[in-house]
């Protein structure tokens, strides 16, 4: 539970009083984070888990424990909303919506995760539009 997350200066300024982080996530997602019993099914099926700094079940634990450094986690941006975890969760918690809530908390503090102008010209012409619209909707507030 004591992994070192790369801290972002702006994101680290977002602070919460006791219980506020979980409350905000619950309001945005409509999910009960305290329902999680840490079985790890979400992490076992996640296609990105090997690239994540926190596994999805750890993310939920961080929220419950009021550890707002979870907002610095790579995990929330690596989630591509494929709904595999949400489909398999034995407690029927929609983890996909929880990841979106964490992204939204960062984005609603006017901190974008993607800078559109950094995408190389050649790629802009090659990649399907649906990828761009998705990326901008997920990573830019």
């Amino acid at each position: 539970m004591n992994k070192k997350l790369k801290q972002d200066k702006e994101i680290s300024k977002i602070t919460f009083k006791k219980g506020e982080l979980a409350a905000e996530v619950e309001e945005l997602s409509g999910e009960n984070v305290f329902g999680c019993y840490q079985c790890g099914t979400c992490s076992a099926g996640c296609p990105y888990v090997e690239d994540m700094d926190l596994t999805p079940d750890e993310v939920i634990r961080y929220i419950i424990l009021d550890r707002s450094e979870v907002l610095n986690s790579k995990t929330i941006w690596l989630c591509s909303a494929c709904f595999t975890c949400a489909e398999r969760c034995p407690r029927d918690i929609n983890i996909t919506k929880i990841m979106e809530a964490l992204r939204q908390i960062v984005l609603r503090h006017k901190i974008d995760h993607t800078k559109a102008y950094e995408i190389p010209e050649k790629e802009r012409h090659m990649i399907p539009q649906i990828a761009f619209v998705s990326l901008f909707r997920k990573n830019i507030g």
Partner: protein
Amino acid sequence: MKLLYFPGCTLKTSAKNLEKSAFAITKALGHELVEMDDWTCCGVVSSLSDDDLMRHLAPLRNLIHVEDQGENRVVVLCDMCCNTLKQTNLRVKEKPDDLETLNLFMDRENDYRGTVKVQHFLEFLRDDVGFNVLKKMVKKPLKNLKIMPYYGCMLLRPREVAVDDAEEPTILSDLLSALGVEVVDNPFKIECCGSYHTIQEKELVSRRAYRIASYAIERGADAIVLSCPLCRFNLDVRGKEAEKMFNGYKQLPVFYYTQLIAVALGLDPSVYGFDQHAVDPTLLLKKKGVLEVVKNI
């Protein structure tokens, strides 16, 4: 039967071949796809935060335009558009208050009455045409081909808008069997292809493409069949790039199911559109004797 059709932006650019082949097979099956008027971008990913109604506007506006044309069904080819339209349709049916807010916000549009059924083209082929009917129309059974069906996420999840079972889908393998193909099963068939990470995390997506395709190769597959334009790009283009990352790896050709149907129905090669692929499947089709020496390629 005339079917109202919602294209979406990608079908007009990097997935022209999906549209072209789908139009051709629909015609061959005795139906017609008619592009709807005034369609706009659907927003591609559905809003997942409860308070964010703004992102339901684009899909809802398209559903209103379907109603404006006096239709109660719209057929979609793109998996991501279909998923987004279906999710918004569901949300406004389940939460009438949200629908009222959205209707009031769009004061230049007619109110949405909730009469539209969004249907994926694959569902149309399965439920309205029937794979057994399709089977009877096959002119060139694709007997020598071993193909792995790849579903990705958007066809199957979330379960409320899925076209088939989320863990054990069969719609593509049933279709392949009808065309005479030998189906190669693969547990990665329902895993994400990397989606929009293809922009910022190219190598990660190449690794995913490698993982999905190398398992298929191990099981003897000659090619992959799929339906989503973004999955096609990731498995085909990013998969091709994975050849430089993994020694000895050779990317498999990737088909849209519509292209494969067009081949099996013996339609003119000009509708296949294989020139948009990074790995051209023509060589494979010639090697397997499906396509004879084709004159106009």
